[in-house]
């Protein structure tokens, strides 16, 4: 097979791909039988607990672990930080303990005495004027001649908008069970490590551990069947892996379970950087934007992180000026958050554009359509199509009224948000094994975050081999399998579907070579359909799958599919678009925003499983509604402490808070022919923009800051025109 044809079968010929299969691991999860890493209870398990710093900024004067070490049941104590360490945020890990029970471990952690010299802190980010030296003035980026463009503009609008720091709030906290069995010089045995992590990156985990602990990768086993949420915050082994490792080694190699408690999880387990922006938009009275000026700042914790770049999507606006200023705060460090930077950018830019549309008295849907010309060239028509589709599904023409024209106490409004994402698949390797008894296994070192990865790999293999789903056994989730990548950046589906298609095609061709003589033809003249190997064009000349495999004799087929990131041909690509519309009602007396309907139009190229794709979009939208209405990390300026490191005051949306959601996957043939594109990120981008714009449309004034809480809504109403 000189040039195997890996390309996807045409839409109308697919039997498994494109079908709405239920997720394969669904029964395990919904019966409670799925064992997450944090559910694993290996023999001789010890429970770990952290002592963390209560101060936002402090220097350690002394650490005394002696009382903890004396407590009955304590197996090992590890002082992470020593006298002199300068701590930069609350929740910083100072020491850890492993004990026979979790209760003893927590008690022992409380017995560790730490003396601090408390230092001045800075935790506020919304007011740049207060940041002083903690703000690092960013450089200016200029395109065209913004000064002149604003002078010549027929209309301009100005506004300030803010989107706060939010927490990942993964339900399964960060952590792992780590077992480090020391080797012994006496018998020449080497160190052995077994880890059950909660990670988005099983394949790279052992490499990290080797670099850090100097234990050969061969001696490290990593296993993860299920993960309770990551959303970008769980890529590396992290400090807690190595703390658990120390505790395990000190305890003679007993496994140690160490997960962050909820308060610590909220403080240091990851957050999305804030972004605040003063934006000026200039343009023509027909709605064409000619100038865009954004002055943006925000914080990602102590280390400076540049806030989101603008203008979002409409990057070809002729005249632009942008300044981005990172602010350093004494708060937990940011981590990647499901489309890093994009939610902030979408919110800021789309709010500014809707304010411009309101200023010139135009329907924002028309203004977006007109300005779609400034999106990347290849995406312009897609955005126009999707804007029309979203307008149709949201009943925009009937329901949308000019800003502020809604009457009554409870006012209804509609708003738009735009999304863009890459979603190119990562390098990935897959092994497909066909056994002489007809059984098939597909092995790939990936992980299923709940996105449906298990299901779509199995669909690709079954489609390629002409089999049904239950004829394919899938093996994922350990580090000794063919390497895949981390599940982040919406790169998984493209990677695994490409490598699986290649491996299954290669394995099938080997089977064709074996059975071709029996069918009196050449291997290239065979096809696998409906559990048969048959001659193309002569379906009556066939062998059943089992009969064909029997001809292998004693030897199984084992073939690799290697996608190196570049050789995927038409199997995959990148560049997804999305348009979303929020339909809300705002009670102008209580300030409560209620979701009526939400429409999400999304493309992601070839859709392997529409049911799971829709679930991804539903999930992204619900998560976005939660951030638009409720979520905000609250810091106390006076004490520097986090006020809501929990789940009652750090509020997530519940089942009654989300209204009704309509998802439209754009699976037109021209989208399908592009190949597979990742989907995890793009639909999570525009929700805050759409909701904030709908609120402004309803009540007639801009509520500048997310979340759309009564405090913010009533504040804007009382302030009049913001």
């Amino acid at each position, binding site marked *: 097979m000189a040039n195997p044809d890996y390309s996807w079968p045409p839409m109308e010929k697919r039997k498994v791909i494109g079908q709405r299969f239920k997720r394969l691991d669904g*029964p395990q999860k919904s019966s*409670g039988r799925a064992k997450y890493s944090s559910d694993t209870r290996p023999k001789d398990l010890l429970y770990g607990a952290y002592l963390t710093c209560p101060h936002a900024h402090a220097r350690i004067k002394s650490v005394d672990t002696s009382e903890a070490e004396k407590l009955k049941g304590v197996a090992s104590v590890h002082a992470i930080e020593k006298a002199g360490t300068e701590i930069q945020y609350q929740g910083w890990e100072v020491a850890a303990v492993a004990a026979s029970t979790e*209760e003893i471990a927590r008690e022992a952690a409380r017995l560790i005495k730490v003396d601090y010299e408390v230092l001045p802190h800075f935790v506020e980010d919304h007011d740049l004027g207060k940041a002083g030296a903690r703000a690092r003035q960013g450089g200016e980026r200029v395109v065209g001649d913004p000064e002149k463009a604003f002078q010549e503009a027929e209309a301009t609008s100005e506004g300030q908008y803010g989107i706060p720091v939010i927490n990942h709030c993964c339900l*399964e906290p960060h952590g792992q069970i780590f077992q480090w069995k020391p080797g012994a010089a006496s018998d020449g045995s080497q160190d052995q490590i077994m880890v059950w992590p909660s990670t988005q990156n099983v394949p790279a985990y052992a490499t990290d551990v080797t670099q850090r602990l100097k234990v050969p990768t061969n001696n490290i086993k990593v296993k993860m069947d299920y993960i*309770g949420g990551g959303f970008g915050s769980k890529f590396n082994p992290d400090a807690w892996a190595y703390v658990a490792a120390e505790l395990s080694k000190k305890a003679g190699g007993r496994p140690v379970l160490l997960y962050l408690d909820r308060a610590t999880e909220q403080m240091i387990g990851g957050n999305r950087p804030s972004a605040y922006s003063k934006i000026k938009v200039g343009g023509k009275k027909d709605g064409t934007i000619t100038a865009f000026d954004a002055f943006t700042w925000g914080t990602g914790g102590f280390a400076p992180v540049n806030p989101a770049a603008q203008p979002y999507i409409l990057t070809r606006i002729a005249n632009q000026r942008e300044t981005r200023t990172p602010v350093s705060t004494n708060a937990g460090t940011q981590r990647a958050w499901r489309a890093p930077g994009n939610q902030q950018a979408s919110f800021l830019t789309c709010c500014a554009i809707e304010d411009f549309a309101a200023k010139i008295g135009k329907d924002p849907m028309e203004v977006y359509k007109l300005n779609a010309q400034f999106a990347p060239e290849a995406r312009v028509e897609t955005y126009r199509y999707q804007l029309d589709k979203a307008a149709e599904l949201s009943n925009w023409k009937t329901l949308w009224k000019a800003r502020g024209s809604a009457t009554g106490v409870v006012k209804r409004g509609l708003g738009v948000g735009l999304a863009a994402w890459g979603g190119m698949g990562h390098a990935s390797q897959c092994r497909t094994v066909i056994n002489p008894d007809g059984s098939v296994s597909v092995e790939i070192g990936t992980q299923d975050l*709940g996105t449906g990865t298990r299901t779509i790999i199995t669909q690709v293999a079954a489609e390629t081999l002409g089999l049904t789903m239950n004829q394919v056994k899938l093996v994922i989730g350990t580090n000794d399998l063919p390497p895949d990548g981390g599940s982040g950046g919406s790169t998984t589906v493209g990677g695994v579907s490409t490598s699986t298609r290649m491996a299954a095609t290669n394995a099938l061709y080997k089977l064709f070579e074996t059975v071709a003589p029996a069918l009196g033809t050449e291997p290239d003249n065979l096809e696998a359909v409906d559990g048969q190997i048959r001659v193309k064009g002569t379906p009556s000349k066939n062998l059943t799958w089992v009969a064909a495999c029997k001809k292998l004799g004693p030897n199984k087929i084992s073939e690799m599919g290697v996608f190196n990131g570049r050789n995927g041909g038409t199997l995959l690509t990148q560049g997804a678009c999305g348009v979303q519309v929020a339909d809300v009602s705002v009670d102008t007396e209580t300030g409560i925003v209620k979701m009526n309907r939400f429409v999400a139009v999304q493309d992601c190229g070839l859709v392997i499983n529409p049911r799971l794709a829709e679930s991804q979009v539903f999930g992204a939208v619900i998560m976005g509604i939660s951030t638009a209405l409720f979520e905000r990390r609250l810091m106390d300026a006076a004490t520097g402490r986090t006020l809501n490191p929990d789940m009652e005051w750090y509020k997530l949306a*519940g*089942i009654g808070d989300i209204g009704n*959601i309509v998802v439209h996957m754009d699976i037109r043939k021209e989208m399908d022919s592009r190949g597979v594109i990742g989907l995890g990120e793009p639909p999570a981008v525009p929700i805050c923009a759409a909701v904030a714009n709908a609120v402004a449309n309803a009540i007639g004034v801009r509520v500048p800051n997310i979340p759309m809480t009564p405090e913010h809504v009533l504040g804007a109403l009382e302030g009049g025109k913001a």
Partner: protein
Amino acid sequence: MSSKKDSELPAKSPTGFSRRGFIGRVGIGGGALGTGLLENEAIAAPPAVAGPGAVPITLTLNGKPVKVTVEPRVTLVDALRNYLDMTGAKRVCDRGTCGACTVIMAGKTVYACSILAVDAVGKNIETIEGLATGNALHPISRAFVDNDGQQCGYCTPGFVMACKGFIDEHPNPTEADVNHGLGGNLCRCGTYMGIRKAVLQAAKEMKGGKSNG
């Protein structure tokens, strides 16, 4: 988002009090811990002295007596997960907000993180492990699969148990009932659209006598 369902339900606990009932009555923003409500609870059910060391207790789990030795400070969810290897119930918020640890105790839906194991003695505790045996699926679990009411799945066992308690009390729910009655469980992946459909499907099936739970 507080547990609205319990405000409608008769309090079945002998003490007439539970964390869910408490939240139902005073609301999430009540902040009424200093009002004497907890003292009243103490008077209603003076606790037997146990501990401070580990004490042997017998829990009734899915109808069967199970012996376990725990310190009195061990919560029910920790007893299940760390001492009995019953890890269906998850510990997430660990303070009675998110519902990932939901079990049914003496017929009432409760947060297992907010009950001490020693206080659960003598009451039948239904956990997700008891819903169905072997590879069988309870109609609620099956409905979650059919309607894709789960992604990462970490909230799912708690949600399934909350649905069980909800359907037991509301055999003919409307979608509005579901939105109101399952507000005590939180999902981070955003699976509520599937869960709504799942609850309605399961309620219909269970009423049809197909329930094995």
